[in-house]
Protein backbone atom coordinates (compact mmCIF):
# COMPACT_ATOMS: atom_id res chain seq x y z
CA UNK A 1 0.00 0.00 0.00
CA UNK A 2 1.26 3.44 -0.87
CA UNK A 3 1.70 5.43 2.31
CA UNK A 4 -0.42 8.56 2.48
CA UNK A 5 2.51 10.65 3.54
CA UNK A 6 6.15 9.92 3.20
CA UNK A 7 9.01 12.14 4.34
CA UNK A 8 12.40 10.97 3.26
CA UNK A 9 15.40 12.60 4.85
CA UNK A 10 13.68 16.00 4.87
CA UNK A 11 15.89 18.94 5.69
CA UNK A 12 14.62 22.48 6.01
CA UNK A 13 16.84 25.44 6.51
CA UNK A 14 15.82 29.08 6.90
CA UNK A 15 18.12 31.82 5.79
CA UNK A 16 17.84 35.36 6.94
CA UNK A 17 19.30 37.39 9.75
CA UNK A 18 20.29 34.10 11.28
CA UNK A 19 20.19 30.66 9.84
CA UNK A 20 17.85 28.13 11.38
CA UNK A 21 18.17 24.45 10.68
CA UNK A 22 14.57 23.75 11.42
CA UNK A 23 14.28 20.16 10.15
CA UNK A 24 17.28 17.89 10.03
CA UNK A 25 16.77 14.64 8.15
CA UNK A 26 13.24 13.74 9.03
CA UNK A 27 11.93 10.31 8.00
CA UNK A 28 8.29 9.71 8.64
CA UNK A 29 5.39 8.01 6.98
CA UNK A 30 1.69 7.88 7.54
CA UNK A 31 -0.79 5.29 6.33
CA UNK A 32 -4.18 6.30 4.93
CA UNK A 33 -6.72 6.66 7.68
CA UNK A 34 -4.06 6.78 10.33
CA UNK A 35 -3.97 9.40 13.06
CA UNK A 36 -0.51 10.46 14.06
CA UNK A 37 0.29 12.62 17.05
CA UNK A 38 3.37 14.74 16.50
CA UNK A 39 4.74 15.74 19.86
CA UNK A 40 7.48 18.19 20.67
CA UNK A 41 8.30 21.38 22.45
CA UNK A 42 8.22 24.80 21.02
CA UNK A 43 10.60 25.31 18.15
CA UNK A 44 11.16 21.61 17.52
CA UNK A 45 9.91 21.92 13.97
CA UNK A 46 6.38 20.60 14.17
CA UNK A 47 4.76 23.43 12.28
CA UNK A 48 7.49 23.50 9.69
CA UNK A 49 6.90 19.81 9.03
CA UNK A 50 3.23 20.45 8.42
CA UNK A 51 3.86 23.47 6.25
CA UNK A 52 6.22 21.49 4.08
CA UNK A 53 3.34 19.22 3.22
CA UNK A 54 1.43 22.22 1.88
CA UNK A 55 4.43 23.99 0.45
CA UNK A 56 3.62 26.97 2.65
CA UNK A 57 7.16 27.87 3.65
CA UNK A 58 8.39 31.21 2.32
CA UNK A 59 9.97 30.13 -0.97
CA UNK A 60 12.78 32.68 -0.95
CA UNK A 61 14.03 32.15 2.55
CA UNK A 62 13.74 28.41 2.96
CA UNK A 63 15.89 25.65 1.52
CA UNK A 64 14.50 22.18 1.33
CA UNK A 65 16.21 18.84 0.79
CA UNK A 66 14.93 15.32 0.71
CA UNK A 67 11.55 14.29 -0.52
CA UNK A 68 7.98 14.67 0.59
CA UNK A 69 5.29 12.59 -1.01
CA UNK A 70 1.60 12.62 -0.46
CA UNK A 71 -0.26 9.71 -1.97
CA UNK A 72 2.78 9.03 -4.07
CA UNK A 73 2.92 12.54 -5.51
CA UNK A 74 6.07 14.51 -4.94
CA UNK A 75 4.89 17.66 -3.22
CA UNK A 76 8.05 19.52 -4.19
CA UNK A 77 7.26 19.17 -7.88
CA UNK A 78 3.79 20.64 -7.66
CA UNK A 79 3.04 24.09 -8.95
CA UNK A 80 0.26 26.24 -10.28
CA UNK A 81 -3.09 24.52 -10.60
CA UNK A 82 -1.84 21.21 -9.32
CA UNK A 83 -0.52 22.84 -6.17
CA UNK A 84 -3.79 24.68 -5.61
CA UNK A 85 -5.68 21.42 -6.05
CA UNK A 86 -3.34 19.75 -3.61
CA UNK A 87 -3.81 22.45 -1.01
CA UNK A 88 -7.19 22.22 0.54
CA UNK A 89 -8.29 19.49 -1.82
CA UNK A 90 -5.90 16.65 -0.98
CA UNK A 91 -4.46 18.08 2.19
CA UNK A 92 -5.96 20.66 4.45
CA UNK A 93 -4.96 22.24 7.67
CA UNK A 94 -6.36 23.48 10.95
CA UNK A 95 -4.41 26.22 12.68
CA UNK A 96 -3.66 26.90 16.30
CA UNK A 97 -5.34 30.29 16.38
CA UNK A 98 -8.55 30.16 14.37
CA UNK A 99 -9.06 33.80 15.23
CA UNK A 100 -6.03 34.64 13.12
CA UNK A 101 -6.44 31.99 10.48
CA UNK A 102 -9.90 33.07 9.43
CA UNK A 103 -10.38 36.19 7.37
CA UNK A 104 -12.02 38.67 9.72
CA UNK A 105 -14.09 40.44 7.07
CA UNK A 106 -15.78 37.44 5.47
CA UNK A 107 -18.50 35.41 7.10
CA UNK A 108 -17.75 31.86 8.09
CA UNK A 109 -20.17 30.59 5.47
CA UNK A 110 -18.50 32.60 2.70
CA UNK A 111 -15.11 31.28 3.66
CA UNK A 112 -16.22 27.68 3.60
CA UNK A 113 -18.22 28.12 0.42
CA UNK A 114 -15.31 29.79 -1.28
CA UNK A 115 -13.14 26.74 -0.67
CA UNK A 116 -15.82 24.41 -1.91
CA UNK A 117 -16.36 26.45 -5.04
CA UNK A 118 -12.67 26.50 -5.74
CA UNK A 119 -12.18 22.76 -5.41
CA UNK A 120 -15.48 21.31 -6.45
CA UNK A 121 -16.40 23.87 -9.04
CA UNK A 122 -19.97 24.10 -7.82
CA UNK A 123 -22.26 27.10 -7.72
CA UNK A 124 -22.35 29.49 -4.84
CA UNK A 125 -25.68 28.23 -3.63
CA UNK A 126 -24.54 24.64 -3.69
CA UNK A 127 -21.36 25.61 -1.91
CA UNK A 128 -23.37 27.33 0.81
CA UNK A 129 -25.33 24.13 1.24
CA UNK A 130 -22.10 22.24 1.70
CA UNK A 131 -20.99 24.85 4.23
CA UNK A 132 -24.21 24.46 6.15
CA UNK A 133 -23.84 20.71 6.08
CA UNK A 134 -20.30 20.98 7.38
CA UNK A 135 -21.26 23.30 10.21
CA UNK A 136 -23.92 20.82 11.22
CA UNK A 137 -21.42 18.03 11.16
CA UNK A 138 -19.05 19.83 13.47
CA UNK A 139 -22.00 20.27 15.86
CA UNK A 140 -22.26 23.97 15.77
CA UNK A 141 -25.57 24.98 17.30
CA UNK A 142 -27.99 26.83 15.00
CA UNK A 143 -25.72 26.44 11.96
CA UNK A 144 -27.93 28.49 9.64
CA UNK A 145 -27.32 31.51 11.74
CA UNK A 146 -23.62 30.82 12.21
CA UNK A 147 -23.19 30.65 8.47
CA UNK A 148 -23.71 34.38 8.37
CA UNK A 149 -21.60 35.39 11.34
CA UNK A 150 -18.10 36.76 11.25
CA UNK A 151 -15.29 34.95 13.04
CA UNK A 152 -14.95 37.57 15.77
CA UNK A 153 -18.56 37.05 16.74
CA UNK A 154 -17.87 33.46 17.78
CA UNK A 155 -16.26 31.97 20.84
CA UNK A 156 -12.89 30.24 20.57
CA UNK A 157 -14.33 26.76 20.57
CA UNK A 158 -16.90 27.71 17.99
CA UNK A 159 -14.27 29.24 15.74
CA UNK A 160 -12.18 26.11 15.92
CA UNK A 161 -15.20 24.05 14.92
CA UNK A 162 -15.76 26.36 12.00
CA UNK A 163 -12.12 25.99 11.05
CA UNK A 164 -12.50 22.22 11.13
CA UNK A 165 -15.63 22.47 9.02
CA UNK A 166 -13.69 24.53 6.55
CA UNK A 167 -10.78 22.11 6.47
CA UNK A 168 -13.00 19.11 5.93
CA UNK A 169 -15.38 20.71 3.47
CA UNK A 170 -13.54 19.30 0.47
CA UNK A 171 -13.04 15.87 1.93
CA UNK A 172 -9.26 15.90 2.03
CA UNK A 173 -7.35 12.66 2.31
CA UNK A 174 -4.99 14.20 4.80
CA UNK A 175 -5.80 16.62 7.58
CA UNK A 176 -3.08 18.55 9.31
CA UNK A 177 -3.90 19.92 12.73
CA UNK A 178 -1.39 22.34 14.22
CA UNK A 179 -2.05 22.50 17.93
CA UNK A 180 -5.75 23.11 17.32
CA UNK A 181 -6.68 23.00 20.98
CA UNK A 182 -3.81 24.77 22.71
CA UNK A 183 -5.67 28.05 22.93
CA UNK A 184 -8.82 26.44 24.29
CA UNK A 185 -10.12 25.64 27.72
CA UNK A 186 -9.82 22.09 28.90
CA UNK A 187 -13.55 21.54 28.74
CA UNK A 188 -13.71 22.81 25.18
CA UNK A 189 -10.50 21.09 24.22
CA UNK A 190 -11.86 17.67 24.99
CA UNK A 191 -14.96 18.43 22.92
CA UNK A 192 -12.83 19.30 19.94
CA UNK A 193 -10.57 16.30 20.38
CA UNK A 194 -13.49 13.92 20.47
CA UNK A 195 -15.06 15.66 17.51
CA UNK A 196 -11.89 15.23 15.51
CA UNK A 197 -11.68 11.60 16.42
CA UNK A 198 -15.23 11.08 15.31
CA UNK A 199 -14.85 12.97 12.06
CA UNK A 200 -11.67 11.12 11.27
CA UNK A 201 -13.55 7.85 11.50
CA UNK A 202 -16.41 9.22 9.48
CA UNK A 203 -14.29 10.67 6.70
CA UNK A 204 -11.57 8.07 6.87
CA UNK A 205 -8.76 10.52 6.31
CA UNK A 206 -5.23 10.47 7.61
CA UNK A 207 -4.46 13.02 10.29
CA UNK A 208 -1.27 14.52 11.57
CA UNK A 209 -2.04 16.14 14.87
CA UNK A 210 0.63 18.40 16.28
CA UNK A 211 0.69 19.13 19.97
CA UNK A 212 3.06 19.64 22.83
CA UNK A 213 0.68 18.08 25.31
CA UNK A 214 1.20 14.35 25.70
CA UNK A 215 -2.26 13.91 27.13
CA UNK A 216 -3.81 15.41 24.02
CA UNK A 217 -1.69 13.23 21.80
CA UNK A 218 -2.79 10.16 23.68
CA UNK A 219 -6.42 11.13 23.36
CA UNK A 220 -6.39 11.32 19.59
CA UNK A 221 -3.49 9.38 18.14
CA UNK A 222 -3.04 5.89 16.88
CA UNK A 223 0.64 6.57 16.62
CA UNK A 224 2.84 9.11 18.35
CA UNK A 225 6.04 10.62 17.03
CA UNK A 226 8.22 12.73 19.32
CA UNK A 227 10.24 15.53 17.76
CA UNK A 228 13.24 17.26 19.13
CA UNK A 229 15.38 19.87 17.43
CA UNK A 230 14.05 19.19 13.96
CA UNK A 231 14.07 15.44 14.01
CA UNK A 232 12.18 12.47 15.40
CA UNK A 233 13.64 10.99 18.54
CA UNK A 234 11.04 8.34 19.05
CA UNK A 235 7.94 7.05 17.33
CA UNK A 236 5.55 4.18 17.79
CA UNK A 237 2.00 3.37 18.67
CA UNK A 238 0.54 5.51 21.39
CA UNK A 239 0.70 2.68 23.86
CA UNK A 240 4.33 1.87 23.03
CA UNK A 241 5.50 5.41 23.45
CA UNK A 242 3.58 6.15 26.62
CA UNK A 243 3.99 2.89 28.38
CA UNK A 244 7.45 2.06 27.23
CA UNK A 245 9.29 5.29 26.49
CA UNK A 246 12.84 4.58 25.39
CA UNK A 247 14.38 7.92 24.56
CA UNK A 248 15.58 9.96 27.54
CA UNK A 249 13.78 12.98 26.13
CA UNK A 250 10.47 11.14 25.93
CA UNK A 251 10.96 9.94 29.46
CA UNK A 252 11.72 13.46 30.61
CA UNK A 253 8.62 14.80 28.90
CA UNK A 254 6.44 12.19 30.55
CA UNK A 255 7.93 13.02 33.92
CA UNK A 256 7.48 16.74 33.33
CA UNK A 257 3.89 16.11 32.42
CA UNK A 258 3.44 15.21 36.09
CA UNK A 259 2.36 11.76 35.00
CA UNK A 260 2.37 9.97 38.31
CA UNK A 261 4.27 12.78 40.04
CA UNK A 262 4.04 12.72 43.79
CA UNK A 263 3.20 15.93 45.52
CA UNK A 264 6.12 17.55 47.25
CA UNK A 265 8.59 15.35 45.50
CA UNK A 266 11.06 16.97 43.13
CA UNK A 267 10.23 16.51 39.47
CA UNK A 268 12.65 14.83 37.15
CA UNK A 269 12.87 17.93 35.03
CA UNK A 270 14.94 17.96 31.89
CA UNK A 271 17.57 20.61 32.57
CA UNK A 272 18.47 23.42 30.20
CA UNK A 273 16.68 24.49 27.10
CA UNK A 274 16.52 23.32 23.47
CA UNK A 275 19.43 24.10 21.12
CA UNK A 276 19.38 27.16 18.94
CA UNK A 277 19.69 25.21 15.65
CA UNK A 278 22.08 27.70 14.15
CA UNK A 279 24.15 24.91 12.67
CA UNK A 280 23.12 21.55 11.32
CA UNK A 281 23.49 19.00 14.10
CA UNK A 282 26.33 16.55 13.72
CA UNK A 283 25.67 14.80 17.01
CA UNK A 284 22.71 14.00 19.19
CA UNK A 285 20.94 17.30 19.70
CA UNK A 286 19.72 16.22 23.09
CA UNK A 287 23.13 15.26 24.45
CA UNK A 288 23.61 18.54 26.28
CA UNK A 289 20.51 18.04 28.35
CA UNK A 290 20.70 14.28 28.64
CA UNK A 291 21.67 12.84 32.03
CA UNK A 292 22.90 9.66 30.32
CA UNK A 293 24.90 11.33 27.58
CA UNK A 294 28.22 9.78 26.65
CA UNK A 295 31.03 10.88 24.38
CA UNK A 296 29.56 8.74 21.67
CA UNK A 297 26.42 10.90 21.78
CA UNK A 298 28.42 14.04 21.21
CA UNK A 299 30.52 12.70 18.37
CA UNK A 300 28.01 11.45 15.84
CA UNK A 301 24.37 11.43 14.96
CA UNK A 302 22.49 8.73 16.85
CA UNK A 303 21.30 5.68 14.92
CA UNK A 304 17.63 4.94 14.55
CA UNK A 305 16.86 1.74 16.32
CA UNK A 306 13.82 -0.42 15.72
CA UNK A 307 12.57 -1.54 19.04
CA UNK A 308 9.63 -3.50 17.78
CA UNK A 309 7.25 -3.20 14.86
CA UNK A 310 6.59 0.46 14.60
CA UNK A 311 8.46 1.56 17.67
CA UNK A 312 11.65 3.38 16.66
CA UNK A 313 14.10 5.33 18.77
CA UNK A 314 17.01 7.52 17.77
CA UNK A 315 19.37 6.95 20.64
CA UNK A 316 22.73 5.25 21.10
CA UNK A 317 21.62 3.74 24.37
CA UNK A 318 19.23 1.50 22.46
CA UNK A 319 21.88 0.00 20.20
CA UNK A 320 23.06 -2.06 23.10
CA UNK A 321 19.60 -3.40 23.75
CA UNK A 322 18.96 -4.65 20.26
Amino acid at each position, binding site marked *: MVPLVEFENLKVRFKGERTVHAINGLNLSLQPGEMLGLLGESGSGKSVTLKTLLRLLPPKRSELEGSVRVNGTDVMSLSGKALARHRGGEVSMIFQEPALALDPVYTVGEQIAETVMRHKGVSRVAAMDVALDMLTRVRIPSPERRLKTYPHEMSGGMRQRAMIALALSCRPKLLLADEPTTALDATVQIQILLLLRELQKEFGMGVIFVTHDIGVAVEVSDRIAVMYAGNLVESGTAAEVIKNPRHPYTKGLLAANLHGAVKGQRLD*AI*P*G*SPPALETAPDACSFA*DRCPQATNRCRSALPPVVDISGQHKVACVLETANV
Partner: protein
Amino acid sequence: MTVVADTAEVAEPVRKAPGYWAGVFKRFLNDPVAVTCTIVVLLLILAAIFAPYLGLNDPYKASMIKRLKPIGFPGFPLGTDEQGRDMLARLIYGGRLTLFVGLVPVVLAFFIGSTLGLVAGYVGGWINTIIMRTVDVFFAFPSVLLAIAISSALGAGIINSLVSLTIVFIPPIARVAESATASVRALDYIDAARATGGSALTIIRVHVIGNVLGPIFVYATSLTSVCMILAAGLSFLGIGVRPPEPEWGLMLNTLRTAIYINPWIAALPGVMIFITSLCLNLLSDGLRSAMNVKD
Protein backbone atom coordinates in the same frame (compact mmCIF):
# COMPACT_ATOMS: atom_id res chain seq x y z
CA MET B 1 21.84 28.34 46.59
CA THR B 2 22.75 24.84 45.62
CA VAL B 3 19.21 23.59 45.80
CA VAL B 4 18.40 24.82 42.35
CA ALA B 5 21.57 23.63 40.74
CA ASP B 6 19.83 21.17 38.52
CA THR B 7 17.80 23.88 36.92
CA ALA B 8 20.68 26.26 36.36
CA GLU B 9 21.31 27.32 32.82
CA VAL B 10 23.63 25.46 30.56
CA ALA B 11 26.89 27.33 30.14
CA GLU B 12 26.81 30.10 27.60
CA PRO B 13 29.55 32.60 26.84
CA VAL B 14 29.60 35.62 29.10
CA ARG B 15 28.63 38.72 27.22
CA LYS B 16 27.38 42.16 27.83
CA ALA B 17 24.20 42.66 25.90
CA PRO B 18 23.95 45.84 23.88
CA GLY B 19 21.19 48.17 25.04
CA TYR B 20 18.10 48.90 23.08
CA TRP B 21 19.41 52.20 21.80
CA ALA B 22 22.67 50.62 20.76
CA GLY B 23 20.65 48.18 18.71
CA VAL B 24 18.63 50.97 17.16
CA PHE B 25 21.80 52.81 16.35
CA LYS B 26 23.32 49.78 14.73
CA ARG B 27 20.26 49.09 12.63
CA PHE B 28 20.10 52.73 11.66
CA LEU B 29 23.72 52.72 10.56
CA ASN B 30 22.98 49.74 8.34
CA ASP B 31 20.47 51.76 6.38
CA PRO B 32 22.45 53.68 3.77
CA VAL B 33 19.53 55.88 2.73
CA ALA B 34 18.79 56.98 6.27
CA VAL B 35 22.44 57.61 6.98
CA THR B 36 22.87 59.70 3.84
CA CYS B 37 19.82 61.74 4.73
CA THR B 38 21.03 62.23 8.27
CA ILE B 39 24.32 63.50 6.93
CA VAL B 40 22.56 65.90 4.58
CA VAL B 41 20.34 67.23 7.35
CA LEU B 42 23.27 67.52 9.73
CA LEU B 43 25.30 69.37 7.12
CA LEU B 44 22.43 71.76 6.57
CA ILE B 45 22.08 72.36 10.28
CA LEU B 46 25.81 72.79 10.77
CA ALA B 47 26.03 75.12 7.80
CA ALA B 48 23.15 77.11 9.23
CA ILE B 49 24.73 77.31 12.66
CA PHE B 50 28.19 78.18 11.45
CA ALA B 51 27.06 80.31 8.54
CA PRO B 52 28.93 83.38 9.77
CA TYR B 53 32.22 81.45 9.77
CA LEU B 54 31.93 80.01 6.31
CA GLY B 55 33.34 83.06 4.60
CA LEU B 56 30.10 83.68 2.74
CA ASN B 57 29.04 86.96 1.25
CA ASP B 58 26.78 89.16 3.32
CA PRO B 59 23.30 87.72 2.77
CA TYR B 60 21.73 91.14 3.18
CA LYS B 61 24.05 93.10 0.91
CA ALA B 62 22.10 94.08 -2.15
CA SER B 63 23.40 95.31 -5.44
CA MET B 64 21.05 96.45 -8.14
CA ILE B 65 23.57 95.95 -10.89
CA LYS B 66 24.22 92.38 -9.96
CA ARG B 67 20.65 91.28 -9.59
CA LEU B 68 19.45 87.89 -10.79
CA LYS B 69 22.81 86.74 -11.99
CA PRO B 70 22.94 83.11 -13.09
CA ILE B 71 24.38 80.22 -11.18
CA GLY B 72 28.16 80.25 -11.49
CA PHE B 73 28.47 84.01 -11.79
CA PRO B 74 31.95 85.03 -10.60
CA GLY B 75 31.86 85.64 -6.86
CA PHE B 76 28.36 84.24 -6.57
CA PRO B 77 28.48 80.45 -6.96
CA LEU B 78 24.69 80.17 -6.91
CA GLY B 79 23.99 83.50 -8.53
CA THR B 80 22.09 86.38 -7.00
CA ASP B 81 18.51 87.11 -6.10
CA GLU B 82 16.18 89.88 -7.19
CA GLN B 83 18.13 92.40 -5.15
CA GLY B 84 21.53 91.17 -6.17
CA ARG B 85 22.15 89.40 -2.89
CA ASP B 86 24.25 86.27 -2.88
CA MET B 87 21.99 83.25 -3.27
CA LEU B 88 24.43 80.82 -1.69
CA ALA B 89 24.72 82.95 1.43
CA ARG B 90 20.98 83.51 1.55
CA LEU B 91 20.21 79.84 1.10
CA ILE B 92 22.58 78.89 3.88
CA TYR B 93 21.43 81.66 6.17
CA GLY B 94 17.90 80.85 5.03
CA GLY B 95 18.41 77.35 6.35
CA ARG B 96 18.78 78.88 9.78
CA LEU B 97 15.32 80.33 9.92
CA THR B 98 13.66 77.67 7.85
CA LEU B 99 15.04 74.83 9.92
CA PHE B 100 14.42 76.80 13.08
CA VAL B 101 10.80 77.46 12.25
CA GLY B 102 10.47 73.97 10.81
CA LEU B 103 11.95 72.07 13.72
CA VAL B 104 11.33 74.07 16.85
CA PRO B 105 7.52 73.79 16.76
CA VAL B 106 7.82 70.03 16.48
CA VAL B 107 10.24 69.96 19.40
CA LEU B 108 7.96 72.13 21.50
CA ALA B 109 4.89 70.20 20.45
CA PHE B 110 6.79 67.01 21.21
CA PHE B 111 7.33 68.05 24.81
CA ILE B 112 3.92 69.53 25.38
CA GLY B 113 2.00 66.92 23.42
CA SER B 114 3.87 64.00 24.98
CA THR B 115 3.25 65.33 28.45
CA LEU B 116 -0.43 65.81 27.76
CA GLY B 117 -0.71 62.41 26.14
CA LEU B 118 1.24 60.68 28.89
CA VAL B 119 -0.87 62.19 31.60
CA ALA B 120 -4.11 61.51 29.73
CA GLY B 121 -3.09 57.97 28.88
CA TYR B 122 -1.73 57.03 32.28
CA VAL B 123 -4.17 58.74 34.57
CA GLY B 124 -7.27 58.18 32.46
CA GLY B 125 -10.66 59.17 33.83
CA TRP B 126 -11.94 62.69 33.51
CA ILE B 127 -8.45 64.14 33.02
CA ASN B 128 -8.19 62.01 29.94
CA THR B 129 -11.62 63.15 28.85
CA ILE B 130 -10.78 66.82 29.19
CA ILE B 131 -7.43 66.59 27.47
CA MET B 132 -8.49 64.32 24.67
CA ARG B 133 -11.75 66.09 23.91
CA THR B 134 -9.88 69.38 23.64
CA VAL B 135 -7.44 67.68 21.35
CA ASP B 136 -10.38 66.42 19.30
CA VAL B 137 -11.59 69.95 18.77
CA PHE B 138 -8.25 71.03 17.38
CA PHE B 139 -8.20 67.88 15.33
CA ALA B 140 -11.36 69.05 13.64
CA PHE B 141 -9.24 71.51 11.66
CA PRO B 142 -7.12 70.34 8.77
CA SER B 143 -3.57 71.21 9.79
CA VAL B 144 -2.94 73.65 6.97
CA LEU B 145 -6.14 75.50 7.74
CA LEU B 146 -5.36 75.67 11.45
CA ALA B 147 -1.84 76.91 10.85
CA ILE B 148 -3.02 79.56 8.45
CA ALA B 149 -5.90 80.57 10.66
CA ILE B 150 -3.75 81.02 13.75
CA SER B 151 -0.93 82.68 11.87
CA SER B 152 -3.21 85.09 10.16
CA ALA B 153 -4.86 85.87 13.46
CA LEU B 154 -1.57 86.50 15.19
CA GLY B 155 0.00 88.27 12.25
CA ALA B 156 3.32 87.67 10.56
CA GLY B 157 6.55 87.12 12.45
CA ILE B 158 8.78 84.30 13.57
CA ILE B 159 7.40 84.00 17.06
CA ASN B 160 3.85 83.91 15.78
CA SER B 161 4.75 81.24 13.25
CA LEU B 162 6.35 79.19 15.99
CA VAL B 163 3.30 79.55 18.19
CA SER B 164 0.82 78.66 15.50
CA LEU B 165 2.77 75.66 14.22
CA THR B 166 3.31 74.41 17.75
CA ILE B 167 -0.41 74.58 18.38
CA VAL B 168 -1.01 72.72 15.15
CA PHE B 169 1.26 69.83 16.09
CA ILE B 170 0.38 69.38 19.74
CA PRO B 171 -2.91 67.53 19.12
CA PRO B 172 -1.56 64.82 16.82
CA ILE B 173 1.41 64.19 19.07
CA ALA B 174 -0.81 64.12 22.14
CA ARG B 175 -3.00 61.56 20.42
CA VAL B 176 -0.15 59.29 19.54
CA ALA B 177 1.29 59.69 23.04
CA GLU B 178 -2.04 58.91 24.62
CA SER B 179 -2.66 55.76 22.68
CA ALA B 180 0.94 54.58 23.13
CA THR B 181 0.70 55.24 26.85
CA ALA B 182 -2.65 53.57 27.16
CA SER B 183 -1.38 50.45 25.43
CA VAL B 184 1.79 50.33 27.51
CA ARG B 185 -0.24 50.91 30.63
CA ALA B 186 -2.24 47.78 29.93
CA LEU B 187 0.91 45.63 29.95
CA ASP B 188 1.66 43.41 32.87
CA TYR B 189 4.95 45.01 33.76
CA ILE B 190 3.20 48.20 34.66
CA ASP B 191 0.94 46.22 36.94
CA ALA B 192 3.98 44.50 38.36
CA ALA B 193 5.58 47.86 39.05
CA ARG B 194 2.39 49.18 40.60
CA ALA B 195 2.26 46.06 42.74
CA THR B 196 5.70 46.88 44.14
CA GLY B 197 4.20 50.12 45.38
CA GLY B 198 5.86 52.58 43.02
CA SER B 199 4.22 55.97 42.78
CA ALA B 200 2.57 56.99 39.54
CA LEU B 201 5.34 59.45 38.82
CA THR B 202 8.09 56.89 39.38
CA ILE B 203 6.33 54.36 37.21
CA ILE B 204 5.82 56.87 34.43
CA ARG B 205 9.44 57.88 34.66
CA VAL B 206 10.98 54.43 34.83
CA HIS B 207 8.56 52.23 32.97
CA VAL B 208 6.32 54.29 30.74
CA ILE B 209 8.41 57.05 29.21
CA GLY B 210 11.09 54.73 27.91
CA ASN B 211 8.54 52.63 26.13
CA VAL B 212 6.32 55.29 24.64
CA LEU B 213 8.95 57.81 23.70
CA GLY B 214 10.11 55.70 20.78
CA PRO B 215 6.87 55.74 18.83
CA ILE B 216 6.15 59.35 19.75
CA PHE B 217 9.62 60.36 18.72
CA VAL B 218 9.36 58.57 15.41
CA TYR B 219 6.01 60.17 14.81
CA ALA B 220 7.36 63.58 15.72
CA THR B 221 10.25 63.21 13.30
CA SER B 222 7.78 62.38 10.58
CA LEU B 223 6.08 65.68 11.33
CA THR B 224 9.24 67.74 10.89
CA SER B 225 9.03 67.73 7.13
CA VAL B 226 5.35 68.60 7.22
CA CYS B 227 6.13 71.41 9.62
CA MET B 228 8.92 72.74 7.47
CA ILE B 229 6.81 72.77 4.32
CA LEU B 230 4.00 74.38 6.24
CA ALA B 231 6.26 77.00 7.79
CA ALA B 232 7.64 77.84 4.39
CA GLY B 233 4.07 77.93 3.10
CA LEU B 234 3.15 80.51 5.72
CA SER B 235 6.05 82.68 4.69
CA PHE B 236 5.10 82.12 1.09
CA LEU B 237 1.64 83.41 1.88
CA GLY B 238 3.16 86.38 3.64
CA ILE B 239 2.02 85.43 7.13
CA GLY B 240 5.24 83.81 8.27
CA VAL B 241 8.74 85.15 8.52
CA ARG B 242 9.08 88.79 7.54
CA PRO B 243 11.42 90.20 4.96
CA PRO B 244 14.27 90.88 4.55
CA GLU B 245 15.16 87.81 6.60
CA PRO B 246 16.34 85.03 4.36
CA GLU B 247 13.87 82.17 4.68
CA TRP B 248 13.27 79.63 1.96
CA GLY B 249 9.51 80.02 1.78
CA LEU B 250 9.79 83.77 1.71
CA MET B 251 12.58 83.64 -0.85
CA LEU B 252 10.41 81.45 -2.97
CA ASN B 253 7.73 84.08 -2.72
CA THR B 254 9.89 87.09 -3.49
CA LEU B 255 11.64 85.26 -6.31
CA ARG B 256 8.41 84.21 -7.91
CA THR B 257 8.41 86.90 -10.54
CA ALA B 258 12.07 86.27 -11.27
CA ILE B 259 11.06 82.95 -12.73
CA TYR B 260 10.74 84.72 -16.07
CA ILE B 261 14.28 86.01 -15.91
CA ASN B 262 16.22 83.28 -14.24
CA PRO B 263 14.08 80.26 -13.49
CA TRP B 264 16.93 78.31 -11.93
CA ILE B 265 17.56 80.92 -9.28
CA ALA B 266 13.86 81.17 -8.59
CA ALA B 267 13.69 77.41 -8.19
CA LEU B 268 16.56 77.14 -5.73
CA PRO B 269 14.65 77.80 -2.49
CA GLY B 270 12.03 75.29 -3.60
CA VAL B 271 14.74 72.76 -4.28
CA MET B 272 16.18 73.35 -0.83
CA ILE B 273 12.80 72.87 0.81
CA PHE B 274 12.27 69.75 -1.23
CA ILE B 275 15.66 68.22 -0.46
CA THR B 276 15.40 68.97 3.22
CA SER B 277 11.92 67.66 3.61
CA LEU B 278 12.78 64.60 1.54
CA CYS B 279 15.73 63.88 3.81
CA LEU B 280 13.68 64.47 6.92
CA ASN B 281 11.07 62.05 5.64
CA LEU B 282 13.59 59.38 4.76
CA LEU B 283 15.37 59.91 8.05
CA SER B 284 12.13 59.45 9.88
CA ASP B 285 11.40 56.30 7.91
CA GLY B 286 14.84 54.99 8.76
CA LEU B 287 14.28 55.70 12.43
CA ARG B 288 10.92 54.05 12.25
CA SER B 289 12.30 50.82 10.96
CA ALA B 290 15.37 50.97 13.20
CA MET B 291 13.12 51.40 16.20
CA ASN B 292 10.62 48.82 14.94
CA VAL B 293 7.72 51.15 15.30
CA LYS B 294 4.56 50.11 13.50
CA ASP B 295 2.39 52.79 11.98
